[in-house]
């Protein structure tokens, strides 16, 4: 392909600036030594991170989001892996509909999901518990786990498994020793992506969260609705850095392009 000319690179620079600016600004402001929203022009300070550590509300929300993410990602993965195996290895009527159904939360606006869950909880009289919340997250993140797992199960050639069977391995041993290792990265990648999506989830959660089950994004949203102060930028910085680290791990493991685009480089 042709190389990029000067104007292309200029455009590119501006585009990258556009993408990165809000994140950089947030992180910069987290280090201010002043008591109000400002750039750290007088020197860096960690006072707001300290304030964060003393803010019970944010800490509770962070821990809740963490727990929630772990639980929903794990449950989603446990549901998604057998489904992915079924979809990619068997030809059966309704396979397309099943796949579409399991991926449908991606096409349903978060607002609608939030309202639907809220209604469901009020009818079933459950609402307000951690487990109710995790169910909603499982539904929302399962498509992500499923997509990534499918990507690795679909490419799987059966001959290797058949070779193992012909050599005398029982079905479950063949699965455990031959299939599982091959799809392991896809499954782990799917788990991680599900975790990230659960942790980040805002819109749907806004509807179903209660004072006792406030996730970090919801807590931040509530906070922002009242005021924007350096505390919230400190929280955001922690989130950004944490996500960056997870991104690096994901890239190492599965390749970030596979995660985000669905295809390898």
């Amino acid at each position, binding site marked *: 392909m042709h190389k990029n000319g000067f104007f292309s690179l200029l455009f590119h620079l501006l*585009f990258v600036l556009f993408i990165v600016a809000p994140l950089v600004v947030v992180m910069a402001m987290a280090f201010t030594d002043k008591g109000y929203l400002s750039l750290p022009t007088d020197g860096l300070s960690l006072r707001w991170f300290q304030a964060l550590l003393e803010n019970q509300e944010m800490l509770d929300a962070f821990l809740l989001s963490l727990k929630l993410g772990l639980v929903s990602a794990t449950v989603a993965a446990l549901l998604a892996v057998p489904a992915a195996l079924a979809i990619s290895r068997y030809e059966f009527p309704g396979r397309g509909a099943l796949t579409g159904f399991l991926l449908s939360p991606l096409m349903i606006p978060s607002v609608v999901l939030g309202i639907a869950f809220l209604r469901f909880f009020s009818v079933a009289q459950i609402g307000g518990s951690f487990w109710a919340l995790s169910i909603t997250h499982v539904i929302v993140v399962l498509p992500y786990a499923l997509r990534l797992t499918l990507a690795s199960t679909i490419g799987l050639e059966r001959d290797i498994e058949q070779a193992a069977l012909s050599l005398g391995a029982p079905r479950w041993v063949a699965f455990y020793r031959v299939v599982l290792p091959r799809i392991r990265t896809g499954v782990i990648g799917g788990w991680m992506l599900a975790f990230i999506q659960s942790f980040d989830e805002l819109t749907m959660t806004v509807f179903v969260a209660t004072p006792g089950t406030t996730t970090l994004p919801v807590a931040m949203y509530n906070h922002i609705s009242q005021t924007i102060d350096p505390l919230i930028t400190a929280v955001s910085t922690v989130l950004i850095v944490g996500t960056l680290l997870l991104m690096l791990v994901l890239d190492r493991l599965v390749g970030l392009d596979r995660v985000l685009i669905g295809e390898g480089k």
Partner: protein
Amino acid sequence: MARYDAEHVGTTPWLLSAPALLVFIALLLVPLLLTAVLSLNLFSDTEGVLPVYSLGNYLEVFKDGYFHEIFLRTGGMALAVTLLCVLLGVPETIIIARMASRWRSLFLLVVLGPLLISVVVRTLGWAILLGNNGLINDALQALGITEQPVRMLFTQLGVIIVLTHVLVPFMVIAVWATLQRLDLQVEWAGLSLGASRQTVFRRIILPQIMPGILSGSIIVFALAASAFATPAIIGGRRLKVVATAAYDEFLGTLNWPLGAAIAMLLLVANLIIILGCSKLAERRFKQVFE
């Protein structure tokens, strides 16, 4: 790709997918149905939800100018965001595709990475940048471009800018996927037949990435039309979109049936856009692409 024969399938695939399927039926399908039913109830300020069934909520939405304005505003905004995403995202994707492999990976990460960061954080950054005392206004005034701060927060423009920021990665993803499938030799063939670089781009590259642009546009439009957090934070109380209107009815006025009706309309609109346009695009491009 090896599969079991259709005759030997038996119940295994269904057993494997049963857990996920059952969870989804019980916890996705049922709630959606309940909401659909709820949207047919009526509401009174004194008694709450009334157990009657009527299309009253839907009629209200269709007749009330208040809702017309909201739906039109949401649609117009989504259109503007989609257009911006095409104008910004498509060139950027092509530029990245032309880079050496090392830079390509880096910038894909930079451009797509924010998708993994919560929308709250990204919107917060813009709220800081766009405020009257925000950085952008400070810079504009320092450079002498304007004297008064330009109002961007709590305006339509602000919401459009931020939504573009949030959603342009989806456009990049869609276009990137089609770009990957392009055969470099096809470009060379065009050159060898005498086409200039611009002609090659216009008549050979662009038509081939059009499906990607279209599917990206569909995704961006659907997401923009159902956006909640960004319009809420950047747009504020008075700039309502469909999602925030539903929120208001549900958690503000507590008029659950009306909120449910708005949600249902949003859902149906979304499905029509996504499935409908995808089918149309598919039919148009079917004979051309594998």
